[in-house]
């Protein structure tokens, strides 16, 4: 409940500042009408950009992958000795 009140307060503050900008016309009115949509589109672009950057910098940990493969082989041998068939290779 407190979280919703906080978010609503932020939304009210932003819309009040936008309406104030519209009334006093510090920047021209044509720009002010397009400002909310511009911010939403740029927020979407920023999110997409961060996803792309995260994909590019994703760590692959090659040593751990190798160790994992060795562990898998070891576990398969162990289970095969005990008579459990672990399936396809």
């Amino acid at each position, binding site marked *: 409940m407190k979280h919703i009140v906080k978010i609503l307060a932020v939304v009210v503050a932003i819309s009040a500042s936008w309406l104030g900008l519209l009334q006093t016309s510090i920047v021209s009115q*044509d*720009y002010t009408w*397009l400002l909310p*949509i*511009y911010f*939403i*589109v*740029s927020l979407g*672009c*920023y999110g*997409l*950009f961060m*996803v*792309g*950057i*995260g*994909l*590019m*910098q*994703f760590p*692959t940990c*090659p040593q751990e*992958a*190798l160790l994992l*493969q*060795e562990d898998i082989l070891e576990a398969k041998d162990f289970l095969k000795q005990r008579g459990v068939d672990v399936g396809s*290779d």
Partner: protein
Amino acid sequence: MLQSAKSNKRTMESADRAVGFLLSLLSLSIFSYYTFWVIALPLFYTDHFVHKYFLPREYAILIPVFAGVALICFLCMFIGYVMLKSKKKKA
């Protein structure tokens, strides 16, 4: 078997890297095109040649709104489809 796993991983990593690069390039180009369209274009004379590379400015509002509505529709359809499928599996 370990060698093939390693080469598979290397190609998967470079594919991820390529997709990430394409995504960030796409987002940067969309952002710069939209910024130029909304902010810089009204400052040019109306008979400047650069206006013919940009659509009329009503589309600067229509295209994001249309994309947003399409996204919300797709999300609702996806949620509904998943809910129906889970209910059918339980019944």
